[in-house]
Structure formats: C-alpha cells, structure tokens
C-alpha cells in the first residue's frame, strides 16, 4: 500500500489542503494563547459554541453560522471579563459546563438525528468540500496578516503590560480582533476535529514549539510546521490503519509534544 494513496482521491486532497490551512491559522493564534496562558480558552470557546449547534438544529437554520456567531460573541464576552480583571480561564470555567448543558437541552428539544450531533462533537475532515477550503483560505490569510502586523503588540502586552502602555500600544482593539479570529478559527476547525478535540489544534503545536524553540519568534516559525506535519501524518495514519482522521491528527500532535519534551529534558 502506498502511504500517500489517500491524496490521490479528491476528498483526501481537500482534507490535506483544508487541514493545512486550518493548521496555519490555529497554530499562529495558538502561540498567543499559550504565551498569554489562556489555554483553556480554546476548549471553552469550542464548548460554548455547542449552544450554537443546538440553536441551529432547533430553529432549523444552518448550525455553522449560528455556531460562529455564538463563538465570536462568547470570545468577546470572555475577553471583556478578562480586561475587567476576571481571567479568561475563570470565565471559561464558569460558562463551560453551563453551555454544554444548554446545548444538550436544545438538541434534545430539536429531536435531531444523533449522527448530525456526533459530526459536530467529533468532526469529519474527510467530509469537507472545496467551499469549506475557500473559507479556511480566507481565514488563513486574515490570520497571517494579523500576525505580521500585530504579533509584537500582543506579545509585548503579555510580557509587560505597563511598558506596552508607555509605547502607546492600544491593546483593546487588537486583543478583541485576536479573539474574533481565534473564535472563527475554532469554529471552522470544528468541522474537521469536532468540539471535543479542536482545542488541541490551538494549544499542542504551540506548546511543542515553545519547548523546542525557546523564543517567541521561534514559536511563530515552528508551530505552523509542527501543525502541518501533524495534519499530513494524521491523515496518512488514518488511511493506513482505518482510524478516525481527527483523532489521528491530535494523536500525532501529542506524540510530537512528547518528543519535544524528551528533547528538552535529555537533549541538553
């Protein structure tokens, strides 16, 4: 069997291109999530967006659009709370379970087929279309431009908020833009990995890059590479061993993190 046989098929090509585009967006934003120590945020936004899935199914509208609206709103509310002194992770901790409970009740009321719900919970990268890829490409470009323009602004505000004020950095607007992009990246990646696994795309490649590269600048180069390798290797593994693609991608990310950790501990 040729390992890359999956990419002969159109669904494999779509999965690879879409996966890489998602990997670029999530890993670049993930660096800022890891540096700001708000790693629970990705998982929180994903779970909060479950309300959107429930609402969409209950009202009969496209759940993706409502999920996006719920995720962006949730991220902005959490961001606002954070700027008022309530750390993002505390806000997420409070809203996390409540939102899942509400989502479950809404889905139950909608009497929707459980397979559709499962698709949102666990995702299916092989079911993506070229239309999905176009949306992911647009987002990836937006994230790239944002990173080039505002990476240092956010890093400085994280490292030394007082000094960033002296420099005249208007952190509010940049921070909220970052949260909107983060929420959008999470929702668009839910199609691939599902609500439960999507936070791995945000946190794990950046955490691995941090172990290996040591500096924040290195993280921004390494994390998209690690994430892209994970998508490629995860798709190949899922094809060869006939296992779920999303889970394979996350598993590869976990193995890379373990390898990075061992390199850091024993590589000195």
């Amino acid at each position, binding site marked *: 069997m040729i390992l890359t046989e999956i990419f002969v098929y159109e669904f494999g090509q779509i999965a690879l291109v879409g996966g890489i585009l998602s990997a670029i967006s999530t890993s670049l934003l993930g660096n800022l999530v890891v540096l700001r120590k708000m790693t629970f945020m990705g998982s929180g936004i994903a779970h909060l967006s479950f309300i959107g899935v429930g609402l969409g199914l209950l009202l009969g509208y496209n759940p993706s659009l409502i999920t996006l609206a719920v995720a962006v709103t949730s991220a902005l509310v959490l961001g606002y709370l954070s700027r008022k002194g309530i750390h993002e992770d505390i806000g997420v901790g409070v809203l996390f379970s409540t939102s899942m409970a509400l989502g479950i009740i809404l889905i139950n009321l909608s009497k929707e087929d459980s397979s559709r719900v499962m698709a949102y919970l666990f995702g299916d990268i092989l079911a993506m279309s070229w239309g999905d890829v176009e949306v992911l490409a647009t987002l990836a470009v937006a994230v790239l431009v944002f990173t*080039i323009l505002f990476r240092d602004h956010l890093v400085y505000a994280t490292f*030394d908020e*007082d000094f960033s*004020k002296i*420099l005249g950095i208007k952190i509010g607007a940049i921070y909220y833009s970052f949260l909107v992009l983060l929420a959008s990246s999470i929702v668009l990646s839910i199609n691939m990995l599902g609500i439960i696994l999507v936070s791995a795309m945000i946190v794990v490649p950046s955490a691995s890059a941090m172990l290996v590269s*040591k*500096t*924040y600048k290195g993280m921004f180069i390494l994390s998209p590479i690690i994430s892209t390798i994970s998508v490629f290797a995860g798709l190949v593994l899922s094809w060869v061993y006939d296992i779920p693609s999303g889970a394979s991608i996350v598993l590869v990310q976990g193995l890379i993190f373990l390898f990075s950790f061992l390199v850091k501990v024993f590589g000195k």
Partner: protein
Amino acid sequence: MKCEYCLEVKNLTVRYGDIVAIKDVSFSLEKGKFYTIVGPNGGGKSTLVKTIVGIIDDYDGKITIFGKSRDEYLKERLIGYVPQMSGVRKFPIRVIDVVLMGLFRERKFRYRSHHYKKAMKVLELLGIEELESRLIHELSGGQRQRVMIARALVSGPEILIMDEPTVGLDRESQSKFYNLIRNLKDSGVTVIVVTHDVGFVSEYSDAILCINKRLVVHATDISELPERFFTKLYGYGVKTIVHDHKE
C-alpha cells in the same frame, strides 16, 4: 524655546476608585539633575511616576514636560522607565528583543539592522553585551535590572525614571548602578529614582522629594532632612547611613 524646567507637576491628584493615591502634588524639576523620591509604602511614589511616564491616564492636574503637555510630549518621545523589580515570570523572550521594545515606535512593521545595532550599543554601554541571546528569566536580578535600564535608555530619553532600582542588588551591582547614574547625569539626562535607600539619597541626589499621599517636602540637601523627619515620614526609626560607593 529654552525651558527652565524639564518637568512640572501641578496639583496632581490620582485616585483608584474611591481611594486617593496622591493628592494635590506640585513640584518642578530641572534638566540634568538627579532627583530621588522617598516615602513609605503605599504613599503614592509608584503612582506618581506611573502617571508621569504615561501608564496611568486618569488623573487631575497638569503635567508639563519640556514646556509641552504630557500627552503631547509622549507622542513625540518616550520617558525612560525602569519598573519595580518583581519576580520575572518565565517568558520566551531574549535580552536583545527586550531592549528592542524601547525602539518599537521608531520601527515600521519590523526591526531592521540599525535598530539591532542601536540595541547592541546600549548593551555594550552597560557591559552586558554577552547576554544578548539569553532569555530574560535566566538572568540574575542585577543583570535583569541592567537589561531594563538598557530598554529605557535605547530610545535616548531626556528623562529617566527608575522605581526602586536597587532592591535585590548586591553591593557590587549597586556600585555599578550608582556609577551609571552619575554618567547619565553628566550627559544631561534628568534622572529620577524612587527608593527607600535613604543613605543612597544623601550620597548622590541633587534634591529629594518626600511623598506620602501629598508632597511632604522638596529638599535640595539631605542635611535639610534630619533623621527625625524620616522617622515621622516612615512611622518608624530611620537612620541615615552614608554609603561608600564612589569607586
């Protein structure tokens, strides 16, 4: 236009909610002098300097720097600021990148080679150029302090303000620090240091500002401030010790 004063503060009041941090503080400082701000913890020293450098925007009163309003001046150039040394948390940033932060407003999109050269020059001036590639949290307290001074100096400020810079420094590092201040003052920079080190005040300052919510006194000579005055200011016995740092 030649300005008599480099910094004028008039009727400055800063509140945190209902709590008044400093009230009705007024003073004027001359260019190229070395000033020390002393006062008890919670007396408003850090609030005062944070308001002057632009960290705190919500205040009543007037701050004039080289004849311009604070905001007008800060749009054009930075006041060098070295924050209080607290435990630096682990953060993946190199020394050179910390110093480059001071040149952030000079760059367009990214730092170029002349920015790096400027940053290296300041590191060399402070004798820590070999630390360029080290991570900030790997450094000792004294080394970190000098990196923060380098960041404050790299943009060539006319005024340098340091908040309790000698806390946690050993004797050798303090000596180097005092010599640095002397050199800066000689080159025309106005230096303002917040400290509890009263002996240090007596040794090097041109003038002292005592702050305890209000400006208690603005003296030009330590001998004007008897020990019983400090005792009253701090609420406990303070003995002035003359340091021997002139090396």
